[in-house]
């Protein structure tokens, strides 16, 4: 484990000054308290710690597109609409939360001299209660791409973190979270992203319309299978931000037109017959890239979908647009029952949003953002009613991570 601390070029002198100054502060406070004059409060500095995370404590990832080297992850109390703290998450960062929410991991990239010098691809681990960095492992590489949730993933038991790299070949680094070491780098040629399943497997989406499924054996050796091709990336690609559940390996791959491929991930991934978001809402299905002018309701945005596992609800950002409008934010969220494939709710948003998130409890909150202002909206996930609006929380809020999602 590499774990650098700030070093001063005048090492010993700095240390001396530090102890000296610490001493002064302490003496000052003590002396004040001793003085005869009535002093109502004399305050020492301390550092806040966080209560155990509730289902409504969440991480909000800010890629800060305008100043990418200062990306950050905010910790938010969604019940109060208050910021609890932040940690850096530099340059196309990514974040995953441990299954028990006691720790989280930030994948980030820095350069020694800001925009030059040695590149550091890092996996930093933070303690959720203190936001203290407890590991800061240097990685072989990581993909530099506008961050998608599935560029970084964690196994159901938290024993492995998976880092997608593209350097420029596609591969997935497997990090042992106990030793903080990269135990292996699994090439996934022609494929991208990590959809983890169980404790030691993951799938990737491939350029040829297949799924690559990687199992890591008890001996630590990876083996890979490919599904048959089930979609055509150039005619109706599958959104990389499609939601999945690590524990049982269920995924809902959503295509540009709004087809949903319910998939059981695994070495022998089973891909269901797709159903249509539009048909589930009583409309006709949307056409693919062969009819690029047709305007209809379509899924779109950046983190364009979220899942409430126990309620079997799929949340999808929807907008009206032609085929290649897949990155347009959603003006509404449509909620589907993943068992009946029917739309069960439709909620207008305060402003169109490129991202949607949802908590996993029985009184779920939903999260959206206004791309232009960085405002963060906390909404009742059952009604769409606004609970809080955090004004200008960040620059480019791209997705949320809440306890219990995996």
């Amino acid at each position, binding site marked *: 484990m590499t774990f650098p601390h700030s070093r001063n070029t005048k090492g010993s002198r700095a240390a001396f000054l530090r102890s000296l100054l610490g001493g002064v502060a302490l003496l000052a406070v003590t002396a004040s308290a001793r003085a005869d004059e009535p002093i109502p409060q004399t305050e020492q500095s301390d550092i806040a710690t966080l209560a155990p995370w509730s289902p409504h404590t969440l991480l909000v990832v800010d890629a800060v597109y305008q100043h*990418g080297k200062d990306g950050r992850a905010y910790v938010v109390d969604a019940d109060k609409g208050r910021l609890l703290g932040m940690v850096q998450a530099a340059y196309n960062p990514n974040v995953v939360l441990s299954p028990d929410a006691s720790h989280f991991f930030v994948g980030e990239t820095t350069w020694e001299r800001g925009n030059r*010098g040695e590149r550091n691809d890092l996996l930093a681990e933070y303690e959720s209660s203190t936001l203290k960095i407890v590991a800061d492992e240097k990685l072989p590489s990581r993909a530099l791409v506008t961050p998608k949730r599935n560029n970084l993933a964690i196994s159901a038991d938290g024993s492995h973190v998976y880092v997608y790299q593209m350097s*420029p070949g596609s591969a997935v680094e497997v990090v042992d979270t106990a030793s903080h070491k990269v135990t292996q780098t699994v*090439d996934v040629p022609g494929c991208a992203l990590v959809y983890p399943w169980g404790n030691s497997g993951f799938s990737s989406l491939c350029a040829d319309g297949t799924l*690559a499924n990687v199992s890591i054996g008890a001996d630590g050796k990876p083996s890979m299978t*490919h599904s048959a091709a089930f979609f055509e990336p150039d005619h109706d690609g599958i959104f990389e931000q499609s939601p999945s559940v690590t524990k049982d390996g269920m995924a809902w791959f959503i295509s540009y037109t709004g087809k949903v491929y319910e998939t059981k991930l695994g070495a022998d991934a089973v891909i269901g017959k797709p159903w249509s978001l539009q048909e589930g809402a009583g409309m006709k299905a949307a056409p693919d890239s062969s009819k690029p002018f047709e305007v209809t309701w379509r899924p779109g945005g950046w983190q364009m979908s979220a899942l409430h596992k126990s309620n079997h609800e799929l949340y999808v950002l929807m907008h009206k647009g032609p085929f*290649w409008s897949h990155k347009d934010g959603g003006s509404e969220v449509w909620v589907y029952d993943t068992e009946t494939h029917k739309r069960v709710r439709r909620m207008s948003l305060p402003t169109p949003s490129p991202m949607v998130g949802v908590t996993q409890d029985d009184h779920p909150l939903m999260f959206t953002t206004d791309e232009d202002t960085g405002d963060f909206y906390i909404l009742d996930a059952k009604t769409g009613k606004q609970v809080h609006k955090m004004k200008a929380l960040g620059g480019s809020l791209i997705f949320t991570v809440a306890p219990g999602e995996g």
Partner: protein
Amino acid sequence: MLPSEKKQGSMLDRLTESVLRRIAGRTSRRDVLTKVGGAVAAAPAFMLLPVSRADAATAKPKAQSPFAAKAQAKDDLACDYWRYCAIDGNLCTSCGGGTHTCPPGTAPSPTSWIGSCYNPQDGNSYMIAYRDCCGQDSCNEVTCLNTDGDQPSYRPMANNDIIWCFGTGTSEMYNCSTAAVVGRAS
């Protein structure tokens, strides 16, 4: 076989195919794509090359999208300039560079993603290489997000989310995007 591979390849498709052959020697593109590797497969570099040029194959000498139908060919500082049909990020024309010129203090990547854009002036479609200029953080003057033909990152040559700063000799820090014409699409 992928449905899209049944179609007639474009010029660039054929072109990159032949280039790929020179590099890959006896390994055909199809083999590279379908090759399933263990921990030490050695070929991933080829993902930087076009893996499918279906968007090119379907290119028509008419506007093929709402963007193309409204595009203009006069103002390269505006997001609706024809070449920018799939650009994502800062226009280098606004950052001290040009449509195929990087601002001073940055360097162009020899790699890029590829779009196919319709030029309303001559009625042709062209292959556009969106080469990023790298080495300084985001320039933030005129920022655009156009998505004609934009595919997910598992189709890297058609994806505009990737930081295309491989091989610039600078850090992989994104400053702006150029849009160089590299050939006719149809």
